[in-house]
């Protein structure tokens, strides 16, 4: 599984951080999402999919391997 994050689309809602806090974080200066790892580790897949589903700006794309 690979995660693609488009920071230009991000509106800093923080939804991804709530869904998958070990995979997503927010930049201190503007809250824009940052990806902590492109490939989730075992057990994180479902929360990453949820982050993709609930992102209000459709800024997260999850590519299933």
């Amino acid at each position, binding site marked *: 599984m690979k995660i693609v994050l488009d920071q230009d689309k991000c*509106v*800093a*809602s*923080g*939804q991804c*951080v*709530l*869904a998958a806090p070990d995979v997503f*974080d*927010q*930049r*201190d*200066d*503007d*809250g*824009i999402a940052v990806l902590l790892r492109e490939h989730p580790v075992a057990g994180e897949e479902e929360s990453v999919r*949820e982050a993709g*589903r*609930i992102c*209000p*700006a*459709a800024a997260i794309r999850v590519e299933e391997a």
Partner: protein
Amino acid sequence: MPETQTLSYPMTRGCPFDPPPELTKLREEDPVTRVRLWDGSTPWLVTRYDDVREILLDPRISSDTSRPGYPHPSAATATRRMHFINMDNPDHDRHRRLLTRYFAVKRLEGLRPRIQHIVDELIDQMLAGPTPVDLVEAFALPLPSLVICELLGVPYADRDLFHRTSKTIVSRHATPEEMQAATTELHEYLGDLVESKGVDPGEDVFSRLAVEQLRTGQMSRDEIADMGLLLLVAGHETTANMIALGTLALLRHPEQLAEVRAADDPALIAGTVEELLRYLTIPHLGRRRVALEDVEIGGQTIRAGEGVIVATDVANRDPEVFDEPDRFDVHRNARHHVAFGYGIHQCLGQPLARVELQIVYGTLYRRIPTLALAQPFEEVEFKHEMLAYGVHRLPVTW
């Protein structure tokens, strides 16, 4: 369609916790349809969850309230000053990004101890006073007011001014004159406040805006006051309604309330908050937009210049997305609800609302286990006429 068949919007509720039955019927039978508003205009109403999310994500659908065709909730709200929630991109993102760092999840998580302290103090005061007491006045309104005041740097001592003006600003029944007067009063107050913050800044949001935007000439006093008005009004009204109406909903589901009261698991409290947000969907007059281009949705073509209302309340009851959607269930995973909206305008303050609501629902019923409604349920007055649904008063005893 003949005019007589065009339903008026908004409709009247049957059960106070459920969307109007006509809305549910429309979602099932005519999910993208025309409705008639107070001014005789006939914008589109979109009721299915997937369609609602698609519309709110579409850049061809505008949030600009000044465009002809925008479906205003009332003559008065058409005159309201608002800020980036009424802008399209790129202006929207530029303004929103000035604020997003203050509403980042981890930053707000850091406020938990402070918010817990405020909650505990308010409960102490309630327990020390007489019963019955109005939960709205004693708890539901003071908590988010205190929190947003601290965050923004607004003196809590001035709460009478912003509570009074906010009430008018979110009312669908206010006259244009009343709306204008309330908005101007609050706008002037916040303009003065941000100027004084520029002289003697602290650590709060208004101080940072004064130093980084006002002093450098990047934003004017009026622009910052408009932005502050939105943050202050949205930051306390909505959460206050969720606390009081959510408490009433839980009191009507005593078995689930007992589980919440006994919960040792923060995940159950967090899930309860999401389910209450979904089930109650307090912005119950829809999210409103106007099309910039022709857009096809659900087999209908919405033409450029036509208004669109998306009914998030009934979308949150869509059986395609939520099993047995009309059943209130604190164990449901409701995290993908659209109570905070969707798309680029999704609520900026939602991480703050979540922290506040989780602390309230994890504390209030545990500390006052015998909390009970002190009037017949049938006599509770609901806020049908307000942009955010809720109860006017909630007399409780214990």
